[in-house]
């Protein structure tokens, strides 16, 4: 894990926290916090986001390191799957009622 360059002066960078609530489940975004580096971010996340037994595993990610889709492109970026019902089992109605299918 690389640590992002701390901001000017003494301000600690933001980290996003992901918590796995129990074995077998994926990590889910729980929130964010400030920490000087990855080691402290993990510990702060433990203290802040799991003090009521919320998790068995934690990921922390520098907020800078996350790339996200462009909010302005919501139409174009997510249009393609619209209308492609044949990707879903419910599209195939003739086989309805057939056992184990």
């Amino acid at each position: 894990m690389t640590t992002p360059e701390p901001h000017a002066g003494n301000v600690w960078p933001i980290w996003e926290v992901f918590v796995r609530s129990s074995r077998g489940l994926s990590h889910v975004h729980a929130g964010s916090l400030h920490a000087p580096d990855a080691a402290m971010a993990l510990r702060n996340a433990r203290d802040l986001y799991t003090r009521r037994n919320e998790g068995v595993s934690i990921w922390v990610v520098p907020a800078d390191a996350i790339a996200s889709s462009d909010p302005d492109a919501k139409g174009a970026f997510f249009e393609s799957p619209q209308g492609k019902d044949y990707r879903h089992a419910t599209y195939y109605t003739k086989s309805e009622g057939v056992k184990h299918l």
Partner: protein
Amino acid sequence: MASQTLQSVPAEPSPARHEMSPEDAARRDAEGQAYFDKVMAEDSRIEPRDWMPPAYRKTLLRQISQHAHSEIIGMQPEANWISRAPSLKRKAILMAKVQDEAGHGLYLYSAAETLGQPRDAMMQDLMSGKAKYSSIFNYPARTWADMGAIGWMVDGAAIANQVPLCRASFGPYGRAMVRVCKEESFHQRQGFEILLELSHGTPEQKQMAQDAVNRWYAPALMMFGPPDDDSPNSKQSMAWNIKRFSNDELRNRFVGMMMEQVKVLGLTLPDKDIRFNEETKKWEHGPLDWEEFHEVIAGRGQCNAQRLERRREAHQNGAWVREAAAAYAKKQARKQAEKETAA
């Protein structure tokens, strides 16, 4: 920049406004507004990187940061009693509660940061007196019973305010409130139980409980904000699906709850005018001293100066620690980089 992220948002979507022609900027705004209006009409959620009207952003930033400041300043009146809690069980409960408040402040600052304002800047605004926080925390916590009254009434009023905020139209705010509400469910109960123990205790203990209820009742009711006809921003906040109920609506509902609960405590509320209006089906309460409310907001409350000074002191005393940790991280990162280039 941390503001280019999942949680955070650039002040301007890309490409930046100043790189666009005026026509393009106008078209972007019109499209953004249309999408925003649609989200509002569908009672859906706005996320940090969505287009939003500047006034919406400003309102949210003010409200969420004030909310965060209230949690942080609100730690103080209770933290003052941790060392004197009269039983070890109560000491543990109070520590956990004040600690929760730090956590809630953190969740809320994080939500506000997604609007592009760094936490440090918000903290500076708090310490300089530029930013406001809930004026209830400028009243002193004089006795142990105040720990009960604060939990029962102040947290009770806060919860009544916060539960509808879980559905606030701004996603990060709603999500922070869900977490806060879940964790706060113990805060009000522990306060109620402190008062219950006191009211079933010695006559002096019961008197202490009644006195605390008397002092915190009116300030708690005023936590819902000014009366509806004197609350100019409320209407807009409701149109934006930030607020779901008006100040008076929430206040009246809260009074009704208090009336029921105070009977279980065997105490009374210091308000002879509380009644259930059969016509409107609403609870009503006696007049509140709004002049006092405005005085405290203006900085002339019992503890305004003390609370801010304590926050400034903690922040200043911690400066060398924050610097040290940041410097250490920088050195480690440099070492790591050197190792990688050498390899």
